[in-house]
């Protein structure tokens, strides 16, 4: 009979090398801030050796940025035309290949549309379960994640050989973008043909993209978010919110009701089925506060609600509530903040 003493067990655990890969989100020119949040999540695992994968097309500037992230030891990179749009079919074989070659123990990517799209495909190909929207990392195999639209928090342990998951960006600080000097390792030699094979086998073709251009900060990383709901009555009225947001260098968001009513495009939607934000200041204007919306913003530091219905559930979570007609209150607030600055 073999008996392993607790001391021996500790020894084995301590020396077990933890290889953690973060798959970078980028647009082939710039590294997205979400990648920095994912690197911080990876750093929560004791003794983790953190590497980053930059898979894209003509993306050398992203490789340079990734190599400067503090705490990253290696940046694996591959440049391939089929990786330009980060399709799941092209990126998955690269990640799976890297996992097998480097004996990865953890694979993370941000819980943005990018990460949510390919991470489960990677997990299935590695025959492991995945963890979505990780909000806390206790140790190398214990994680917390919200379920039921954030109305419950589950603590989950994983005994999988590789822990694969997406990281809720608002739950982790950004790793410093400077101060690191990771070694750069090109993996085109073995990975390029895997990309070609997968794209050919699946017959996937990228056709087009429509991106909404905005001068304002990105919704998920903005310090201030001003959101409008059904109470805004029309899309034109969102100009009021834009002015208020601009006064504070913030972003504009919306509730699902405002999106479904066609006031604004759906990429502004904050909520369980939209984006999750946790800014310093969240101003909810004409939003009742359905649980689906609260799931997307209740971790904001300070919440201000402006609503004419004193019974609206949003007031139960708001730090500062103003029961008033938003068409009077919002312009007045914009003016008052301008003056106060």
């Amino acid at each position, binding site marked *: 009979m073999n008996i392993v003493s607790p001391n021996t067990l500790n020894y084995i655990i301590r020396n077990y090398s933890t290889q953690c890969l973060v798959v970078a989100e980028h647009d082939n020119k710039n590294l997205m801030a979400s990648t920095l949040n994912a690197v911080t999540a990876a750093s929560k695992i004791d003794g983790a050796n953190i590497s980053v994968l930059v898979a894209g097309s003509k993306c050398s500037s992203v490789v340079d940025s990734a190599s400067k992230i503090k705490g990253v030891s290696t940046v694996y990179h591959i440049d391939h035309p089929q990786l330009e749009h980060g399709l*799941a079919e092209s990126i998955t074989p690269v990640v799976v290949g890297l996992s097998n070659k480097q004996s990865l123990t953890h694979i993370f990517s941000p819980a943005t549309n990018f990460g949510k799209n390919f991470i489960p495909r990677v997990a299935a190909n590695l025959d492991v379960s995945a963890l979505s929207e990780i909000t806390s990392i206790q140790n190398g195999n214990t994680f917390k994640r919200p379920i039921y639209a954030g109305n419950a928090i589950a603590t989950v342990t994983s*005994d999988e050989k590789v822990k694969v998951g997406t990281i809720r960006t608002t739950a982790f600080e950004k790793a410093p973008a400077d101060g690191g000097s990771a070694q750069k390792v090109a993996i085109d030699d073995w990975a390029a043909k895997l990309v070609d094979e997968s794209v050919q086998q699946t017959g996937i073709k990228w056709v087009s993209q*429509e991106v909404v251009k905005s001068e304002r900060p990105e919704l998920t990383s903005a310090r201030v978010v001003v959101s409008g709901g059904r109470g805004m009555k029309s899309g034109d009225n969102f100009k009021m919110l834009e002015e208020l947001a601009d006064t504070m260098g913030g972003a504009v968001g919306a509730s699902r009701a405002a999106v479904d009513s066609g006031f604004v495009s759906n990429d502004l939607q904050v909520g369980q089925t939209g984006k999750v934000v946790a800014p310093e200041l969240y101003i909810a204007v004409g939003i009742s506060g359905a649980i689906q919306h609260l799931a997307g913003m209740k971790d904001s530091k*300070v919440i201000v609600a402006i609503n004419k219905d004193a019974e609206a559930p949003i007031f139960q979570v708001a730090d500062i509530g103003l029961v008033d007609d938003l068409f009077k209150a919002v312009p007045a607030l914009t003016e008052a*903040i301008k003056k106060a*600055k």
Partner: protein
Amino acid sequence: MSFKILVPVKRVIDYAAKIRVRPDKLGVETNNVKMSINPFDEIAVEEAVRLKENTIADSVVAVSIGPKESLETIRGSLAMGADAGIHVSASADMQPLGIAKILKKLVEQEKPKLVILGKQAIDDDSNQTAQMLAGLLNWPQATFASKVVVDKASDKVTVTREIDGGLETLEMKLPAIISCDLRLNEPRYAKLQNIMKAKKIVVPTKTPEELGVDVSSKLKIVSVEEPAKRVGGSKVQSVDEVVANLKKHAII
């Protein structure tokens, strides 16, 4: 070859129900709580039925994996216009990987041209099953779909996806996997007549063992807790008070 669509549907706590964490902190109370079809799956069924009505698909098969009550969810899908159902008996808290493995077996048996799923179940919020199934089958995937156009002549499907910052359009060779976003369509209400008809359809029940699928999971829920409660703040009387409070919080 006939054009069949497979639509996996999940029975979950109704989206409007207030959930309560169980006293043993190992899950959420489901006894005496209203259960419904997962809203995203309802959209998937609607899309499949519309493809049939537009003479693109020949048949729609609704699949549910879970306890025997999942049959109600299949019946609901049949009442919306699905032609047949398959129930796979399993516990209610199976992980997406096990579900995807069962679905893979059913895909091999049923040979659908399309599998349309909801983008996520509103209970575990995983958003994984469609992608995992696509990975296991090595089929193309289009997740978070807001528009689906099938071209039967060329055996292709064009899908517009909701992505961060806008929309993206992909073209996929069939067979393929699609997961639905909220804005894909507005599901219909089942008519009483169709509900009665749906009751007459025989829905076979299979087991994971019969399908030869190991559904054991290496993920374990250790505890489920209520999230930290926000202390509802105070109401103020004027815009000036709002500004004064923001100053106090050092935000402006």
